[in-house]
């Protein structure tokens, strides 16, 4: 009991406060309903063929399921991470968390899970539900492949969470962080689109690699499907190792930035 127990209790309390402040009852519960409905309502666009692989069918289902939920998650993350945490720093609310008998790392983790982890979980949950309802046999026969596809879809959202957190710590103002987050995120989406377009015409492997690192779902689509969703990115076939490599590299970038943020929060972060 004693020290370990109280630290865990304090962590759970911080986590619960964080979740309740970002998602008051029953906002989270309603969001789950919305995510489920959006993931299931989008049809899977593909003509059935006898040669269509299990993975291609799952890819079709996930592609439909992530169309609207991906957009909603981006908006949610911009609000819960960039704005909420920015406001907490701006108004010195974060001081309350730091005054608890908790290590700074625990405060950071609890706040990160509450603001970024919940939208990320909602997004992953909606994708699993879509697979369970629309392609259950394919899902159970290729769980590993399904996990790779889901990881590739949620990777950019994880990157967005880390980026928003960075903005909040740099700007230290909710509204400015929110505006900056919107601009940067949509610029990134446009940049990926333009890069894909240039990569298609130039057939430049280095450029395609860059697109795959920024958007690992494109590499996954290239590997698993017979027709790439991003046009032209089948110019060069990717192997399984390359596809996993792009995915790992994508997460590695996010993890490195996150590690830097944790170091800054634990060692350098000063409340006003």
């Amino acid at each position, binding site marked *: 009991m004693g020290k370990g127990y109280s630290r865990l209790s304090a962590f*759970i309390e911080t986590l619960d406060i964080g979740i309740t402040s970002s998602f008051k009852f029953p906002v989270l519960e309603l969001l789950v309903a919305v995510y489920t409905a959006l993931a299931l309502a989008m049809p899977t666009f593909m003509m059935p063929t*006898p040669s269509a692989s299990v993975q291609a069918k799952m890819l079709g289902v996930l592609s439909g399921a992530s169309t609207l939920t991906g957009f909603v998650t981006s908006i949610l993350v911009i609000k819960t991470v960039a704005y909420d945490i920015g406001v907490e720093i701006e108004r010195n609310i974060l001081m309350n968390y730091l005054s608890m008998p908790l290590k700074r790392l625990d405060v950071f983790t609890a706040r990160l899970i509450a603001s970024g982890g919940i939208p990320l979980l909602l997004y992953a949950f909606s994708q699993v539900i879509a697979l*369970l309802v629309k392609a259950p046999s394919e899902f159970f026969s290729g769980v590993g492949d399904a996990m790779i596809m889901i990881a590739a879809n949620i990777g950019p959202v994880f990157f967005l969470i880390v980026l928003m957190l960075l903005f909040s710590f740099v700007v230290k103002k909710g509204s400015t962080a929110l505006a900056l987050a919107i601009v940067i995120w949509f610029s990134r989406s446009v940049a990926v689109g333009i890069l894909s377009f240039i990569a298609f015409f130039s057939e430049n492997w280095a450029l395609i690699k860059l697109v795959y690192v920024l958007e690992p779902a494109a590499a996954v689509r290239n590997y698993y499907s017979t027709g790439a969703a991003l046009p032209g990115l089948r110019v060069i076939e990717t192997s399984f190792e390359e596809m996993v490599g792009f995915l790992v590299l994508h997460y590695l970038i996010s993890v490195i930035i996150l590690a830097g943020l944790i170091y800054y929060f634990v060692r350098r972060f000063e409340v006003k």
Partner: protein
Amino acid sequence: MRRLALLLGRIGIALLVSGLVIYGLSLVEITVSSGFSSMSGELSPDMAVIRPFYALSGGRVRVTVFSDSQDIEVYVLKISPEAFRVLGRFIENITMEERVIDVGLARLILNEATRTGYVSIVGQWRGSGSTTVEPESDSYYAILMMTTSITPVRYGVSLQNLVAMIPKRNAIPVALNMVALGLPLSLLYAFRSKRVYRMIAGRG
């Protein structure tokens, strides 16, 4: 511990709500078009056109043929996998694409349809028409067209793949599992929430 119970309770309510949404959506039978394929061409008297296609169980494929001539004969055939393999011996490199074949071979396929159970006619008409196939298991089909006219006739074919927005047979077990898991967890929230407690005790 109260905080943990509240968190688990909220997860339970989320699962419960999600299960109910899935169940509710599965009750609404909405069919959506998930794919479309079309072709057109000219059919000469000594030739026939065959266009194989594949349909998945639980889905529907609507076959529509347009023609300005009543001389065009259209057959929609259900072909067993064995018969499809045999067909591959007569029609080189048979795929899901349209192929022009000899009219004699087309008649042979039709005779086979009436003689054995390997090929069955599921739709038949002259000129323009439409039919929908709903296989119980994943199956091969083919549209076979030939003309009785001495002059070439023009035709157009469209294949529309229709699927249930939410397959009921898959959705209901998922929904039931989520409700079964979410219900006991959500009770944790009910018993631990002060608001709910006050409501039950009549003091809120």
